[in-house]
């Protein structure tokens, strides 16, 4: 920070002037005048009576700030700490009000005090300063260029291209190294996004000689019977059986995030099964992925009367009666459907989703 701020107020001597700029209009009395719109009260002379008054007001405000700070500390130690500290919502709220309120009072009283001080008690006059040309003059620039070229010459970098080029060559891979080092941030995508835990659950069930994997209710983890879900118009969230119990703990949420599915009971007369999916439903009970095909929020709202599935994030709307086709909003694709069936009275999935769930991606196809 090498600029020069000569204070020019009240100094009669000639001022420095940058070559090329017009002469500063000294005669036009740029210095403080009566009609300069200075904040009220600031000036050379203070009216001692009103200054005294202002001083008392400021001092009072400072005292208030002091009192508020002391009260803050007292409350912090005494009240919020009583009975062994804070406990729960009401204590947290109460302490928040007191601590925040006192803190605000302290800062604001100080702030008002300082402001009144500045406006009513400070006697500084407005002053004028020159703005200087920022660029260096021609001479300095020329001298710099000379030094620069001389240095380059001395170093030999201009005269020895072999040195220059091999140096560049040596530096290039160093620039790439940080990128390479980031490789282990995560696994490659591979086919990860194409499967959900439904596939694994179905495989496991079939290995045990069953037709498919049971649907369990999200939250309770109870397998779902057809008879439990018989009232038309209802919707619940289901997951593949075993997702909680059989996966290592750190994978439950991740698998859950892909496999989460909504189950809807649509009155048989309103249901239009899609071509090739005629037997994917059980008496109008259908299952769709709950992961919105837009950017992945849970498509969690269901309107019983219209059978619309609504995603609350950006209002994509899907028609549950018609293969969850998009009828409104920014999502481009239907929600993927899960093939359902019944086994021993329980609802089961007979395979994984036939397409990747969730938002689209480049390799999706």
């Amino acid at each position, binding site marked *: *920070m090498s600029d*020069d*701020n*000569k204070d020019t107020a009240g100094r009669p001597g000639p001022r420095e002037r*940058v070559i090329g*700029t017009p002469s*500063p209009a000294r005669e036009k009395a740029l210095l403080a005048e009566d*009609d*300069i719109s200075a904040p009220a009260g*600031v000036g050379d002379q203070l009216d001692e009576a009103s200054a005294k008054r202002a001083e008392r007001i400021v001092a009072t405000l400072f005292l208030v700030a002091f009192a508020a700070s002391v009260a803050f500390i007292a409350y*912090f130690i005494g009240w919020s*700490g009583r009975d062994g500290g*804070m*406990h729960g919502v009401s*204590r*947290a709220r109460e302490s*928040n*009000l007191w601590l*925040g*309120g006192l*803190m*605000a009072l302290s800062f*604001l009283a*100080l702030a*008002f005090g300082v402001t009144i*001080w*500045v406006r009513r008690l400070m006697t500084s006059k*407005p002053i*004028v300063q*020159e*703005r200087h040309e*920022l660029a260096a003059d021609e001479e300095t620039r020329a001298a710099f260029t000379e030094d620069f070229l001389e240095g380059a010459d001395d170093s030999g970098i201009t005269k020895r291209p072999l040195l220059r080029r091999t140096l560049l060559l040596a530096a290039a891979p160093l620039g790439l190294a940080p990128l390479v080092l980031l490789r282990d*941030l*995560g696994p*490659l*995508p591979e086919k*990860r996004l194409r499967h959900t835990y439904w596939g694994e659950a179905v495989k496991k069930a079939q290995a045990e000689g069953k037709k498919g994997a049971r649907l369990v209710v999200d939250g309770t983890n109870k397998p779902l019977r057809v008879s439990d879900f018989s009232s038309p118009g209802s919707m619940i*969230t289901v997951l593949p059986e075993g997702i909680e119990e059989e996966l290592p703990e750190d994978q439950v*949420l*991740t698998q*859950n*995030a892909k496999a989460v599915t909504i189950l809807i009971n649509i009155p048989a007369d309103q249901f239009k099964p899609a071509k090739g999916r005629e037997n994917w439903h059980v008496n109008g009970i259908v299952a769709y992925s709950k*992961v919105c095909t*837009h950017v*992945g*929020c849970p498509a*969690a709202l269901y309107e019983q009367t219209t059978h619309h599935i609504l995603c*609350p*994030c*950006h209002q994509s709307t899907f028609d549950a009666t018609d293969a969850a086709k*998009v009828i*409104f*909003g*920014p999502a*481009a694709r239907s929600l993927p459907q899960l093939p359902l069936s019944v086994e021993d009275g329980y609802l089961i999935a007979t395979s994984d989703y036939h397409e990747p769930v*969730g938002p*689209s*991606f*480049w*390799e999706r196809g």
Partner: protein
Amino acid sequence: MSEATAPKAVEAPLTFLDDRLGSTTFFKRNMKKVFPDHWSFMLGEIALYSFIILLLTGTFLTLWFQPSMTETVYNGSYTKLQGVKMSEAYASTLHITFDVRGGLLMRQIHHWAAILFMASILAHMLRVFFTGAYRKPRELNWLIGIGMFTLGMLEGLFGYSLPDDLLSGTGLRITQGVAESIPVVGTYIYMFLFGGEFPGQDIVPRLYMLHILLIPGLLLGMVTAHMMIMWVQKHTAMPVKNQSEQQVYGYPFYPVFMAKTGAYFLFTFGVLALLGAFAQINPIWLFGPYDPGAISSGSQPDWYMGVLEGALRIMPNWEVSAWGHTVSFNVLIPALVPLGIVFGGAAAWPFVEQWVTGDKRHHHVNERPRNAPVRTATGIAAVTFYGLLWVAGANDVIADKFHVSLFATTWFFRVAFFLGPIVAFIVTKRICLGLQRKDADVIGHGVEAGVIMMSPDGKFSERHEAPREEERHVLLSKENTRPEAPARDAKGIPAPGTKGPIGHLRSRLNRAWTFDDIPVEEHPHGEQAEIEGGATSHEVRH
């Protein structure tokens, strides 16, 4: 004066420093640095002080926050969630809220400060734009400002993702979806960001590092650079009396500006404490831990993400699949284009303006918005563009409050997205020109004095008087545009800079910039007498 000695407590450390650093030269030079006065110059200061408060409160929060997604069972003092499985990040946030004294307050101040930080940067940038304060030599600071706002958006997004509550998890999910939509490398970016599939175990610790170290570090560097540049270049001044391109007029840094700015810091902290105490923000305990299958309706991101949200909402559902690949324009375009236009456009603007107007001079005195109608109109068009997208981010709320269908609001915003900025441009430009005309009138014919006079033949007229000195100065700060030299001189030789399609474009833009300029100038002779005599006054009809 020279015999005065400072008190020992001041003198001793100053001497200590001076002996070792030669610092007195610096202090002497800068102590009385002049700062011009205007209320709008304080907007940047609010941003600076919010940033400091963010650093302070943020440090407090790190003392207890656990950036870990390892599952744990909550058994703290918030009874409603006792026994619930959640990540350590969420559990420790609950701990800060309910079991650390002042923890809730610090959390709320931190969040409010983030909101104020972004809001004041935006307000400051609007002030700088509309007064032309970004012009040479201040383009660098303008670019740094844009950089800070962009980084601030990221910082905010990462910050509210950390507590790992339901809302923040949903924000991350959207981040994942947007990352996935990027062609070719999208899934790689997704996997590398999350360390596997969403949500995985890595994202919170990673965002934590970015949120408390990398981005604040960058921001701090930019803040420092911003202020040093401002200090070296000196602050711009409003085009009022006593300010000129050569001189700056105002109060000295020490003591007036120092005290004022100190008070400002206290005000900022005080107001934020007030908000932290009385205005609840982000009550994460009500949302519950993140669960990929759940969502609370009506959840809104922080205001500065509203543009992205709005753009995502009103975008038509275009997606293309061909040759085994899918491109989701429905996500890609809203994520990149609107902010790209606003920030890219803002970054390029000072240079484009310079190129169009051919004005390579330094500017230290700001321009009144009306005196640069194209700039002001473009700015208002950009504000409209941004504002419409921002409001569109709440289209469900609007549909609900005003009882219109979501379908209608979405289509309204789709149309307004294109029309709004154009209308805003035209209207603003008209207003600017109207104001210029009025200024020209005041300078040319004086202001209506409110005195009605009767002439000997019985005509009533209102007396006009010359404007006050201060007002005259402000009005005459307008630089009337001079017509550019014609594209070809008499011999048919094209003027420099007008050759080729680029030169042609430049000439046309230059014309668009200047052609309807209304000169505001004093008439050299006669006018004054007329004003005094009231002869130019308008008739007053009965």
